[in-house]
Each structure stands twice: as C-alpha cells, then as structure tokens.
C-alpha cells in the first residue's frame, strides 16, 4: 500500500469512528457540537497512560474511551437539562472549555502539543473501526436501539411505555463520547503527536456535517457520510485549489433534495423489500 493510500485510509477509518461518536447522540435527538473535546480527552488520557505508566497502547485506548464515557455520563446530568439548540450550544461551550484546558495544561505540553511514544498502525485502526461499527450496528438491532428510536421520535410516549428517557439520552450521549475518546486515542497513537489546536469546534462541526449528510436514521448513513466527506476532496484533488469550494457546493446541492441525508430508513426498507421480493420470486420459479 502506498503511503498516500494508507494515509487516506487511516483518516477514513478514524472519521468513521468519529461519525458514530456523533451518530449516537443524534439517534437520541441531541446535536453534540463538543465532540472534539471528548476526542481530545481520549487522546490525552491514552497518551499519558502509555507514556507515563507504560500501559500497552490498545488497553490505553480502550481505557481512554471509558474515561470519556464516564466523563460524559457526569456532564450529561446538567447538559440534558437543556434541549434542542440549547443542548447543542451547551455541548459546544463544553468542547471549547475542554480545548482551552488542553491548551493550558502544562503537564501534557500545553499549546506546544504532546508526543506519543507507542504507535498503532493502520491494521490496528482498521480492526478498531470495525469493532465500533459492529457494536453500533448490533446495538441498533437490539431493544436498546429500538427504544432509542422511540425516545428520538416521541419522548412522552416512550416514558409512558416504561422507557427511562433520561437514561437513554444520557447513555447515547456517553456512548458517543466513548467512541470519540477511543477514536481520539487511536489518532494520537497513530500520528505520534497530539496538537490541542486540532480539537476545535471546527473539528466537531465537520464531523456533524458528514453525519448529517450521510443521514442519521440508519446505521449505514454515518458510514456513507464519512466516506463521502473523506474521499470526495481526494477525488477532487485534480482541481487542487477549487476542491473545497466544489465540495461545499456538493453539500449544498445534495441537501436540497435529501434534507434527511443520503441514506434514509424508508430507502433501506424499500431496498430490503425489493431484495426479499426477488428472492421469493426466485424461490417460486425455482
């Protein structure tokens, strides 16, 4: 694999993880604009653990994911008191506060950044991304996923049917944060350096952008969005300086006919029925 292809592949894989970090809160109706903060938490915690205590990198990464998960559960208590745009802005503010902490935390290098000694290669990241995808896809197929859709669509009815709405919202938020932390940890361990400037609101926004572009009604949507977002600028590399402008036009043009994103649940169930019907026809004729 050439260096160029590998480089893009790593970014794609990490973007898929970040996409699911944003997908879970959205599945419960929350727009998390502070996801970069949790990515940063994961990166710093794992790097500190593996640098200072010699903890094996994968364990450090998973552990950092759990730290981000736990932190999100705690912060979810006040954050979930807000709703809608207020919630999005609260997460935004939280992300900004975290970033300024990273910038000022001298123990991990402050604004100068923090090197990571141990290394995780593209193969390891691929396995981790697959794991994140499978966990998400699996959870979506369980009652947990079912109830999450119910909470997203109608909180009052979900509550009457015995679903603990607050708990589901908090879990969705924390699960997303956990994935963000895990992805951030892998990022730090792959690129061997953590720059706090990266964990800005722009990072959060770009992830949110590709998840909404892919669509949040299905598990496949974020995957498609991440792929689109990572690969399209590369495809447009021929028109070097224009590529982000063209890319932006693509986003605007796509959202007009498809405001719910590229992949919707109606579409998937139509596809599924189409396939099933074909199989039935074959069986009948065969």
């Amino acid at each position, binding site marked *: 694999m050439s260096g160029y292809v590998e480089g893009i592949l790593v970014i794609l894989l990490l973007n898929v993880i970040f996409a699911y970090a944003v997908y879970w809160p959205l599945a419960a109706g929350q727009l998390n604009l502070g996801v970069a903060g949790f990515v940063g938490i994961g990166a710093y915690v794992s790097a500190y653990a593996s640098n200072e205590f010699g903890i094996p990198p994968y364990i450090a990464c998973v552990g950092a994911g759990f730290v981000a998960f736990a932190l999100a559960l705690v912060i979810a208590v006040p954050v979930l008191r807000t709703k809608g745009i207020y919630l999005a802005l609260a997460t935004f503010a939280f992300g900004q506060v975290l970033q300024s902490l990273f910038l000022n935390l001298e123990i991990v290098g402050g604004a100068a950044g923090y090197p990571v000694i141990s290394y995780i290669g593209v193969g390891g990241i691929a396995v981790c991304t697959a794991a994140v995808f499978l966990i998400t896809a*699996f*959870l*979506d*197929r*369980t*009652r*947990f*996923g*079912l*109830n999450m*859709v*119910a909470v*997203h*669509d*109608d909180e*009052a*009815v*979900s*509550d*009457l*049917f*015995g*679903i*603990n*709405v607050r708990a589901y919202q908090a879990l969705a938020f924390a699960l997303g944060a956990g994935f963000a932390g895990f992805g951030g940890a892998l990022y730090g361990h792959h690129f061997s350096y953590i720059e706090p400037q990266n964990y800005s609101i722009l990072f959060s926004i770009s992830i949110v952008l590709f998840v909404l572009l892919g669509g949040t*009604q299905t598990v496949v949507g974020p995957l498609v969005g991440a792929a689109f977002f990572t690969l399209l600028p590369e495809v447009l590399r021929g028109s070097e300086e224009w590529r982000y402008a063209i890319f932006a036009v693509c986003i605007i043009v796509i959202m007009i006919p498809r405001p719910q994103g590229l992949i919707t*649940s*109606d579409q998937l*169930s139509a596809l599924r*029925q189409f396939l099933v019907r074909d199989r039935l026809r074959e069986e009948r004729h065969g």
Partner: protein
Amino acid sequence: MADQPILSLDCVSKSFGGLNVIKNLSFDVRCGQRTALIGPNGAGKSTVFNLISGVFPVNSGRISVNGNDITNVPSRKRMKLGVSRSFQNIRLVQHLSVLENVLVGQTPRVTSLGDILYPIRMTSGSHWQCEAMEVLERAGLAAFARDHVGNLPYGVQKQIEIARALLGGADILLLDEPAAGLNPQETEDLSTRLHQIADSGTTIVVVEHDMQFVGAFCEYVVVLNFGEMIAEGTPQEVRRDPHVIEAYLGSDVA
C-alpha cells in the same frame, strides 16, 4: 374479590394555571367492567386519562390501581403497575415498523439486560416476537407487520396503538377515542376486537364521543361536565338522567 375496584379515583383535582380542570372527582372502575368516560367537549375526559397514566401530577386526591396507591408513582412505572393507554391523536413511532412499534409496547415487562441487548430486530424466533405477532394476527394486522407505520391508513394505525397498549401486560386499558375517525364497518370490527380483549380479562375504559358505540359496548358510564362527575350508572340510566340531558342539550330542554 371481584367487587374490589381495579381503578379508583378519590377526590382528584387538577388545575392548570388557576383554571380548575378536574374538581374533586371520584369514581371506581370494577374489574372487568367495560367503562366509558363521556361528557361534552372540554369536560376534562382526556385530562383524567393523563392523570391516571401520570402525564400530569394531580393537585390533590388519590388514584389507586388494584388497591395500590399510584398517585406519586412516576408515569414511567405506572404501566408496570397495571395502567396502559392509547392516545387521542395517534402517537406511534413513525420511523419503526408495525412489529417494532408493538415490541416497544412490551417494554414494561422487559427487565433483564439480556433482553435489552438481545438482537431482536435481527432475528424472528424469540418469544417476544412470537407474542407480538400473535397479537397482531388476532387484530388482523399480521400482513402489515414489516411495513412502516407512517404509510398505513388511519384505522390500521389506531388498531396498532391498541395492540401496542395491550402488550405492556396491563390490567387496565385506557383508550382515548378509539372509534373517532373510523367508518361504521371499522367501528364494528373495533367493537368485536374490544369484546375479545375484555373477555380475556382486561378492564377497558374508553373516552368516547360515539354514543352508539358507548351504548353497545359499555356496561358502565361515568359522565363528566366541567371537570365534575354529574352522573354514573349503566348507559340506560345515564341516558335518562336530567343532569346529563342538560349538559348535552342545554338547560331549556331539561
């Protein structure tokens, strides 16, 4: 024990911003008794359902189910204690299929982590699904099981709401205007279906405007006007009650 009320409201009051919507309301529903809550528009019928299911807290009074005081039980836990309901405006989860909506109805009985994390949308053999399919079949809805609810006719969606409410395992089913918007044939089917449900031991309480339906289906009627009970009894009794006639037709007729 058959005479012990399964649902009992004792001096229940509720006000919204100084407006007394329910005033000192008391009535009992006996086990298995098909009961209707009727009254002119704005009498507070749906509010009574909302108080029983816990959407709003009461200002004073007591609500008990099966002898347990549920007045301060959070809404989320009331279905477990025996109260399930449908809604005046259909409140199904639009992004889920019919079967999945009905599965959501089972939530009050799902307690183990294993059940929550069982890939129920991927497989089709679990007892939960068999049970849900059975209820759908009995309601004549099995053909729609995999369809998205959003695309189905109104009458079908109303039936799905009832199927979903049934699966919570509650003893009391509160149905908010189940016959509204249905054509005569659908109303008749609904009546048959509700008789089946009642015969299998569930106590049904309806809020309904369709008096023909109430007369044919219910054994006992509670009449509300301006948040107060003005009459109760069999459909025949309340029909003759002067207060009821006055409430519905105006004082000059009485």
